[in-house]
């Protein structure tokens, strides 16, 4: 499980990239497409923002597994762990 601060940081990145209004809550369980109404173009923008912000590379094969904010946070944590290892 990812730390609450990392989830919040990912949520902020998602909000910034997809220009999600401040009155729309983003939680760790928020589904990017179904709950946040992020379309396929926005999803690419979100993933790019996550890569830039956390200085990681998201593998194309991993993208289908990243459907929620917590999925993204977990992936970021894994990549950071791999980089630190």
């Amino acid at each position, binding site marked *: 499980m990812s730390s609450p601060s990392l989830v919040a940081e990912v949520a902020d990145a998602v909000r910034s990239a997809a220009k999600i209004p401040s009155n729309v809550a983003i939680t760790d369980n928020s589904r990017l497409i179904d709950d946040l109404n992020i379309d396929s*173009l926005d999803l690419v923008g979100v993933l790019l923002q996550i*890569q830039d912000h956390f200085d990681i590379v998201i593998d194309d094969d991993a993208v289908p597994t990243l459907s929620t904010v917590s999925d993204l946070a977990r992936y970021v944590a894994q990549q950071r762990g791999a980089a630190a290892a």
Partner: protein
Amino acid sequence: MSERIVVVGHGAVTCLGRGMDATWDGLIAGRSGIRRHASLPAESFLTDLAGMVTEFGPGTPTEDSAIAKLSARYLHLAMASAREAWADSGCEGREFDRNRVAVVVGSAFGGVDLLDAEQARMSRRKSLAASPYLVPGLIVNQAGGQIAQHLGLYGPSVAPANACASGGHAVALGAMFLRSGEADIALCGAGESSFTPPIVNGFATMKALLGRKPEDRSETDPGQASRPFSIDRAGFVLAEGSGAIVLATESAARRYDLHIQAELLGWAINSDGYHMAMPNGERIVQCLRTALERSSVRPGDVGYYNAHGTSTVVNDRVETQAIKEVFGDRARDLPLSSIKGALGHSLGAASAIEAAVCVRVLRDQILPPTINHCPDPELDLDYIPNTARSAPVDIVMSASFGFGGTNNALIFRRWNS
């Protein structure tokens, strides 16, 4: 007889203000919107003189949230003046056929600031992955696309990219849609913001922009950098901005009970077929004459001429000579001015702003001045130097000329005059 085409709304966003009223008030007061800008540092830009719209656009509190994903400034500028003109038209409260509203919004360069930012990001990240918003934000027709999307307008849409004549071309093309019967209403305009090092420095190395010289009067007062028709004019000052007007057929304006502000009597567009960047006086004369003939207006009937007047040595000389040839004995009695002295040159947007200003001229019966004017013996017309002038005016003409050898002229008449 063709149906009359009327103006029912107008708007502008310029370095003098984020709306038509502020722009007009500044013009009439003889103020300049030209400043030196820290956002144009010397390590990247050959000049920091510019006409910028401050506290506006992506990333600011005034950001238009509807188009926030697309951070190209030209889009936000075009959208702002389009919203203003559309609100001014009163269309929104009426029942009208949205399939018969054309959107004709141009730009010279489109979203090049977004391209510049994205290239920097990719370089910084050492990544080949580009933002998915880059291509949509870069293309010139996206301004019209976003306006159509967010105002709900579904008629024909085109985006003239005709350099410094784009906005005037947009007005003429919109009128053509009305005259051909393809639309009842046309939202026409242009937006521009192209402050990237290659473009600013490209204009500078062409010697089109005012360069820095210790004795230049802009060194002590940046507001005096743009000085059309003056003896010491030495290049234009790059600006950003947007302008828009809403045209309608007279029958549509009456059907929807819209407030008619002016009539677009006629227009002309032609090509120099001459040079990539130098104007051709002969073709400009032809363009002005064609607009007059199509409008059934005699040269002596024109009460005000809004000049292209870029403040370059060549343009202002060629345009003055063209006016003399077209207007003959009446040229010296024709009040004319270039508002680029106050606003700088916003390239594609300039002539859309100038069209909106012409509507204000007819409404308020005030002629905006050419500010910073110091007489040039070679240029001996009435440039309305430095101070606005009240004058009865029924017919105004606005002309613009673009790189690539493309010209337009628009003729407006006071409604019910």
